[in-house]
C-alpha cells in the first residue's frame, strides 16, 4: 500500500506537469493552428532562467521564479515575431520546420550559456516530505499538483468566460471569419505565444527541483504533453488535462509493478494505440476521420 500511494503520488505529479506542458502548446495551437515543436526547449529554458535568477543573481525563490516566468513571456512573444509571424499563411510543414529551427537555437544557446553539466534549482519545499498512509511523498510533488490545478482552472476560466477566451475560440474555429469580425488575430497570436512560453517557464520551475536541470529536461515533458493532447483529443482543454493525469498515473503505477524497464515507453505506446483505434481522442466525440 505505501508503495502504491507513492507511485500514485508521483504519477499524479507527473501527470500535472504533462498537463501543464500540453496546455502551453494547445494555447498556441488554438490561436494559430500550429503545433510548436520548440515547447520542450521553452520548458528547459524556463528552468535554467530560474537557476540563473536564484543561484547567480542571488534572488530568493519568489522574485527569482517570477522574474524567470516573466522573461519567458517576453521570449515567447519574440519567438512569435521571429519564427512564426513571417510564415503565417505558409504551409504547415514550413512553420513546423521553423519551430524546429527555433528549438535548436534555444537548446544550443542554453548549452553555450550554462554549459552542459547539470544544474540544480532550489525550492522552498525542497527535500521536505509529506507522510501519508505510510508513504513519503515529496512536498514538491504536492505543490506541482496544486499549482497545476489552479493554473488549469484559471486558463479554463479565461477561455470560457472572458472576451479574450471567446476571441481565441473564434480564431480556433475559423481564423478568417474571426478576423473579419474584428478579432486582432496578430495580437492574439503574440499573446498566445507569450502565455504559452510563460506556462512552459512555470512547468520548468516546478519540475526543476525534482532532480537536476539539464538540456533534455523539457524534451520528454513535451513528448508527454503531446501524448496527453492526443489522448484527450487535440484541442479539448479538459480532455488534455485528464489525459495528462491518466498518462502520468498509468506510467508510474503500471510501470511501477510490471514493465519497469520500459515504463517510460508506456505513454507513447498508449498514444500510438489511441491514434490507431480512436484518433479523435478518448474524451472527444466525433467521427473517426483523418486528423
Amino acid at each position, binding site marked *: 500500500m505505501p508503495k502504491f500511494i507513492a507511485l500514485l503520488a508521483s504519477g499524479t505529479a507527473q501527470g500535472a506537469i504533462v498537463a501543464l506542458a500540453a496546455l502551453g502548446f494547445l494555447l498556441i495551437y488554438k490561436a494559430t493552428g500550429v*503545433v510548436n*515543436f520548440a515547447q520542450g526547449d521553452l520548458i528547459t529554458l524556463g528552468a535554467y532562467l530560474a537557476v540563473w535568477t536564484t543561484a547567480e543573481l542571488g534572488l530568493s525563490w519568489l522574485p527569482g521564479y517570477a522574474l524567470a516566468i516573466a522573461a519567458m513571456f517576453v521570449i515567447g512573444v519574440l519567438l512569435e515575431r*521571429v*519564427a512564426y509571424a*513571417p*510564415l503565417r499563411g*505558409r504551409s*504547415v*510543414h*514550413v512553420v*513546423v*520546420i*521553423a519551430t*524546429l*529551427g*527555433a*528549438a*535548436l*537555437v*534555444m*537548446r*544550443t*544557446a542554453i548549452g*553555450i550559456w550554462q554549459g552542459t553539466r547539470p544544474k540544480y534549482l532550489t525550492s522552498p519545499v525542497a527535500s521536505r516530505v509529506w507522510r501519508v498512509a505510510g508513504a513519503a511523498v515529496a512536498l514538491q510533488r504536492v505543490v506541482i499538483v496544486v499549482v497545476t490545478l489552479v493554473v488549469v482552472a484559471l486558463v479554463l476560466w479565461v477561455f470560457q468566460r472572458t472576451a479574450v477566451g471567446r476571441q481565441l475560440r473564434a480564431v480556433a474555429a475559423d481564423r478568417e471569419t474571426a478576423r473579419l469580425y474584428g478579432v486582432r488575430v496578430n495580437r492574439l497570436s503574440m499573446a498566445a505565444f507569450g502565455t504559452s512560453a510563460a506556462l512552459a517557464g512555470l512547468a520548468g520551475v516546478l519540475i526543476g527541483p525534482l532532480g537536476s536541470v539539464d538540456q533534455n529536461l523539457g*524534451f*520528454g515533458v513535451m*513528448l508527454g504533453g*503531446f*501524448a496527453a493532447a*492526443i489522448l484527450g483529443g*487535440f484541442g479539448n482543454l479538459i480532455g488534455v488535462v485528464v489525459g495528462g493525469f491518466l498518462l502520468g498515473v498509468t506510467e508510474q503505477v503500471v510501470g511501477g509493478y510490471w514493465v519497469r*524497464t*520500459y515504463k*517510460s*515507453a508506456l505513454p*507513447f*505506446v498508449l*498514444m*500510438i*494505440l489511441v*491514434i*490507431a483505434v480512436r*484518433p479523435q481522442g478518448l474524451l472527444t466525440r466525433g*467521427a*473517426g*476521420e*483523418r*486528423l
Partner: protein
Amino acid sequence: MSAAERWRASPYMRLAAFMVAVALWREVRVSGLAGENTYNLWLFYATVVVGFWFVFGLAGQFAFSQAAFAGLGGYASNWASRDNSFWVGLVFAVVVCGALAALFALLVRRASHFYFAIATLALGEILHLLFTRWDAFTGGLGGEAIGIRPISINGYVFSTSTRVFWFLLAMLGLALLAGMFLQRSPVLRETIATRDHESVAATLGTPVLRLRVSMFVLGSVVAGVSGAVFVAWKGFATPDAFGLELGIGVFLMLILGGVESLWGPVLGAAFYVYIPQWLHRFSEYKDVIYGGLLVVAVLVVPEGLVGIGRRLYRLRGGPGPPGLAPSLQTAGRGGLRPLRPSRSRSGGDPGGPVVTSEDVRVRFGGVVAVDGVSLSLAREEILGLVGPNGSGKSTFLNALCGVVPASGHVTVDGHRVPLGRPGAIRRFGVLRTYQAPQTYSHLSCLDDVMLSTADRAASGMFVSWLARPVMHRHERERRERALDALERVGLAGLADASVASLPYGQRRLLELARAIAGEPLVLLLDEPSAGLSAAETDEIAALLRSIREDGTALLVVDHKIDFISAIASRVAVLELGALVAVGDVSTIFDDPRVIDAYLGIEEHAG
C-alpha cells in the same frame, strides 16, 4: 535531340558522372584517416537523407523517426550477424525495419500532419529506449555494442575506411538510382497527387493508403540499410549516434539541400558535414547557426541549395528547372480513337439502370444534408440534378464517391458499392469532377490526366525498379489515351505545360479530360458550367453530349436551367436534401411544385 545529347542530358548519366567524380575527388583531395572518415560520413548521411526524401520530400509525411530507423537497422544487423555473415544481418535489418515501418504506418493510417509527426516522434522515443535498455538485442550494456562484424564479400573484408568508402558509395548510388526510377514512373505522379489532395486522388483510383505506407517503408528501409552499413564500418554502435541530434540533422540536411530534388540530400549532407570543419572556430555555435539557417532557409529559399543553384543557372541563361514532375515526351501517335467505356461486367442488366441509389442519407451532426435520395440513371443517359443552394446536390455526389460518411444502398451495373470509402466507386467505373476544379498544380497537364487511368497495370514501385520495359509499354498506352482525352477538350497543345500555368476555364477542361481518360461508365459532374462564359458553356454542352454518345451515362449537377435543358433528357430536383421531383425536362420545369421550390425566383427576376 540526338541520341547522344539525350544520353548526356539523362539523369542516369548525371548519376554516373557524380559517382566517378566522388571517387576521383577522394583519390586526389581526401587524405588522412580523419579526412576519409568525414568523406565517408557524408556518404552515410546523404543516404539516410535520400531515404527521408522519399518520406518527406516526395510523400510529404512529417516523420521524425528516420534516425531511429537507422539505429534499428544497425542494431538488428548486428544482432543477426553475430554468428552469421554481414549479409544475413543486412537482410534481417531490411526485414525488421520494413515490417515495423509498415505496421506503424498502418496503425496510424488515419493520422496526418501533426498527428503523424508526433506519432513518429513517439516511435523514435520507444526505439531509443529499446536501444538503451534491451541489452540482449543490442549486444552491449546500455546499447554500447562493440566488436560489430565488418562487411565482407567472398572473404574480402571491408576493414578500413578506405575500403568501406566503396561500399558506401555504391549504397548511395543505389538509393539515388531507386529514386530516379521512381521519379520516372507512375509512382511519382500518384504520390504527388496523394500528397497534395488525398481524397481527390482516391476518387481517381489512386491507391492512396498503399502509396503512403510504401513510401514510409521505403524511406525507413533505406535508413535501416544505412545504419547497418554504418555500424559495420565503425565496428561499434551507441544509442546516441541515432538520437535527437541525427534526427534534427536529417531535417536540416534535407531542407538546406532542397526538398524538391533528389540531389538536395547529397548537397545538404555535404553542407552538414563540411561547414563545421571550415568554421571550426565557431564549433560551439554550430547548432545555433544551423537552427538560424533553418528558419532563414524556409523563409527565403524554401527550395534549398539546389534551388539557389538553379536560380543562378537560370540567371546565366540556362533553361528552367525540370521541376519535381518531369513531363513525358509527347511522341507522335495515331488519330483519335473513340472512347471505350469501361468493360461491361457480368451481372449487369443491359436494359436496366446503370446506377441506382436507394435511400442515401448524409447527416452532419443534427443536420440531415441528404435525406433518403433514391435515384436511378439509365445507360447513355444525361440526368440533370438541380436544386437551390444547400439542397444537398454536391453532398449527394460526395456521398456516392465515399468522401462523406453516408448510409443507404448504391449499385453500379448491378454491383453493390460500399459507401464511406473514397475511391470505392471508381473501381466500378464511376468518375467525377468538382465544383471548383481539383487539378494538381505540381504536375504537368498530361500527368494530371493520366492519374485517372483505368489501366493500373505495372504502375507500382517494384515494377518501376525491376521491369521498366513493361512499365514503359503500359505508360505509352496510358499516355496515348490521355493525349486523346486532351485533344477532345482542345488542350492537346498544353500536354507538357504545368497545370499551375492554366487559367480557370482550362483547368475545368483539364479536369474533364482527366475524367474522359478514365473511360468512365458513369460520369458525375458538379456544376461543369460554373464560372464559364456563354461560349465556353456551349462548348462544354457539346462535349458532354459527345461523351454520352460514346456510351457513358452522366449525372450533371448545375444551376443553369437552359444548360440542363440543352443536354439532359431527365431532371431530378432536390430541396432540403430530399428529392421533390424526377421526370422529363419539359414536364419538370413546368411542374408548379418545382417552380415553387426552385424556379420561383423567376417571377421576381423576370
